[in-house]
């Protein structure tokens, strides 16, 4: 007997607009590629416009400095200062940023004298005229602390879009400096028509004692990347053909990517099969459920901002005799605990068994084309309350 499908619960306040289910365009015929880097066994998307597209259309990935949506900004408070909008930070945060800048410079090999000189330059008070000159002029502006989604007051914040090259003082030094020059970072809210209200990019208001605010340059601009899990990255590459993953500036082919991911995680085939299956049903699987709910991923309808997650999914591989391989054995105790947790957060526990046929050879596993030979069995596990009152309302 089949389990019945319960409609997903909508969130109370939905603040986002739905753009698209997947980051592929329905009209253009270009093979525009989104680009990601494989750095230290993580897949990172660095270009802000790619970040924006990948996250908004399909909710892939997670910002590395944010909870989910990459909307890190250097401060939550923004204030007007002589007509321009600046983020406000405390003096202790400012000092911390200065220390980072100093550490970075010393790691680059400068001697102490040069460092102190640079630090004094960096931390001198900035006049508002300098800011305006930089913002309006043609010279490249330090584009720091502002990303495509940066939280800002909702009203008239429209910095002019500039083609800028960001400072090479990135936290991640593995990036090739070439990349910085190529990158055209534009902020999402760009309005060439607006005249006056411009955000001072790269500058910040520091609160010294007793409400005195001084304008300073941001010592270390921090830009945020989008981190994709292995399954998400592979789906974008193999399923949709819209992303290319590069390792040391070399784009990887599908087979190479498959091999790399399989080497990194031995159960990649199984977890990717489940991810691919749920994505092709139009649902959004988000990882990270492990730390919160003890399962492999959560299934959202349409996306996390719109609905609460409907299912907690546990993925288990089984062979052709439908016996598990014992990688994640359950006892009744752990199953009962997991069931309780899932019920408490109003979700349903879904076991996703990936069936591997008997005659699947290792050679076939080397290519993602083996996916078509796998099958997926979904089972809903729930607790039945036997007391009489429950039985009359609630069928099994």
């Amino acid at each position, binding site marked *: 007997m089949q389990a019945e499908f319960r409609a997903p619960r909508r969130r109370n306040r939905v603040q986002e607009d739905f753009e698209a289910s997947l980051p592929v*365009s329905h009209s253009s015929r270009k093979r525009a590629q989104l680009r990601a880097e494989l750095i230290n066994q993580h897949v990172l998307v660095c270009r802000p416009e790619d970040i924006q597209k990948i996250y908004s259309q399909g909710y892939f990935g997670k910002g590395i400095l944010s909870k989910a949506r990459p909307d890190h900004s250097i401060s939550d408070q923004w204030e007007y200062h002589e007509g321009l909008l600046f983020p406000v930070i405390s003096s202790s945060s400012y000092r911390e940023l200065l220390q980072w800048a100093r550490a970075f410079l010393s790691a680059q090999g400068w001697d102490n004298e040069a460092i102190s000189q640079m630090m004094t330059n960096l931390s001198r008070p900035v006049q508002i005229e300098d800011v305006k000159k930089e913002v309006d002029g043609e010279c490249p502006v330090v584009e720091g602390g502002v990303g495509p989604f940066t939280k800002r007051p909702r009203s008239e914040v429209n910095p002019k879009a500039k083609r800028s090259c960001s400072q090479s003082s990135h936290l991640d030094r593995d990036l090739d400096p070439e990349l910085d020059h190529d990158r055209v970072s534009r902020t999402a809210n760009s309005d060439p028509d607006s005249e006056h209200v411009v955000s001072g990019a790269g500058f910040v208001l520091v609160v010294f004692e007793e409400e005195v605010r001084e304008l300073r340059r941001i010592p270390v601009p921090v830009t945020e990347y989008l981190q994709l899990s292995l399954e998400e990255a592979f789906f974008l590459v193999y399923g949709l*053909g819209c992303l290319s993953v590069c390792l040391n500036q070399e784009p990887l082919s599908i087979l190479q990517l498959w091999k790399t991911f399989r080497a990194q995680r031995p159960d990649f085939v199984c977890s990717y099969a489940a991810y691919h299956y749920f994505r092709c049903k139009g649902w959004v699987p988000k990882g990270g459920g492990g730390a919160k709910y003890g399962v492999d991923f959560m299934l959202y309808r349409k996306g996390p901002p719109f609905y609460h997650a409907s299912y907690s999914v546990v993925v288990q591989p089984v062979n052709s005799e439908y016996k598990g391989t014992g990688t994640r054995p359950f006892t009744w105790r752990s199953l009962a605990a997991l069931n309780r947790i899932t019920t408490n957060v109003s979700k349903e526990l879904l076991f996703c068994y990936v069936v591997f046929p008997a005659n699947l050879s290792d050679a076939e596993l080397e290519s993602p084309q083996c996916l078509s030979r796998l099958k997926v069995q979904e089972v809903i596990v729930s607790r039945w309350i036997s007391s009489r009152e429950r039985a009359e309302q609630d069928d099994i």
Partner: protein
Amino acid sequence: MAQQNKLDAGGMVYSEILSPSELFAARSRSHKIPIKGQKNFFPDDSDEQQKQLEQSLNEHCSLLSEERGKGCNGTLVKATWISSKQVVELQSLSGKFWQTMGFSAEGKRYLLPEEALYLMECGSLQVFYEDLALSIQDAYEIFLSSETVSLHQYQVFGHLKRLGYVVHRFDPSSLPSRYAQQLNLPQSGKNAGNQLKRKHDVSLTSTSAPSLSKTLVPTTDTMSADEHMKDESVDESVAMTSSESTADESSTTDSAVMVEPRKWWTSDIIEDKGSNHRNCSRSGWDFSSILFPDLGSKENLSGSLASPDPSLLPGALAVGVCDVASWRSKINQRKVKGSPEHRRRGVDNQRQGWHGKKDEEVQSCKNWTEFNDLMARHQHRRQDEQAEHLWNREVTPLHDPSQPLPTRELLDICSVIKPTCLLEGASRLKPAHEWRISFVVYQPDTASEFKKSKPRKPYTHVCVCGFDGPVPELQTVKLLTSQSGDVPVVFAVVDHGDVSFYTMKDFELPTDVFL
């Protein structure tokens, strides 16, 4: 509990039969359980607290020292244990329990050992073996063995019976064979007049299916000029898809099977589930070919809707051409939040795109033809720059972005992994001994009488396992589901007398497409 026929170590002999005054006292005892009051967290050396504690302790002591009398509630039925057949034969007239328990054979009435033990614990049965009355302890030892039922199974049996369910032993031969299921024969034992109404009966009967389709097809009536209208109507149509498909399947199978004249409100769940087993696919209607009119799109639609296909409508309903021009003028009036930003971004891209970069080249073009050639060259160069590494190797992506497709077809192309159902491949699995269905459970129904010879449709099947044992694997779940026919299977997990129940049901996530 104190046994009435045991000698105390101190030599006192309890009388077996209660005197009339003792019987009266036993029958008129208060049945209330001592109420627990507010919790005292620390002793405060007050007299009141002392009194309260003493009082509750006394109540507990008196409760525990009550002797349970057999037969205090009515007649005490006598029976004997037949060890050769492992059953209990009734000697005196049976009480009310005969309605749901026991069986007749060769003119005599028998009880199964677990039923007898349950009745002994209730105090309404007394079993003799070789002219000696059995104690509860003896009964536990004798009645529960590997040939009858195990202790775990008895605990589950007792738990369910105390809640009021009717529990019988499972007999695999009572299920219809696969052949009979395929033919959708009605069950010979079913009681057509007294089907238990279940919650989802409503959605599965044939009359509700036309009402669902009636609300979906002429969607113009329910359209509202709302900013999220298009989204919501797509939402609803998608959400209805899954429930509609099950409803439609039942309607098609119901019309196909007409073995005996049946009233529609007693339509059997068995037939629907039988066809469910036969083919694991679910939809009776092909929704990819039935087009729902999209009034919210900005493309030019005619101002009127043609009448829908008569095969989609129920019965004698006829829908004419619908004029939707007035509706279409009312929609899409509010700007969607965020669209100015989109527009701005688009404009900005055009203004400050790479046109700005190649200022010199653009300025060197003297007329539009040259400009167009320049654009074309840039386009090609850009395409060459795109990583061709994905498309010039052995394994290519499943979808080529240069061939844009609507989302639904895109998902269809990418669905290389197929779902499977629990019954698939279950026939070739070998049944194991430790995992088998022990009991059949029927709902207690006070409205009508339960007939043992023609029981109702079972509510569930129970498979008993111990809490310290392993969790059933997919293999076991498949096996039990196939053995159990269309009745759900519940796993009863026994942990030192506490029983909890878990179900593992087949499921298929519905496809969900927006835009």
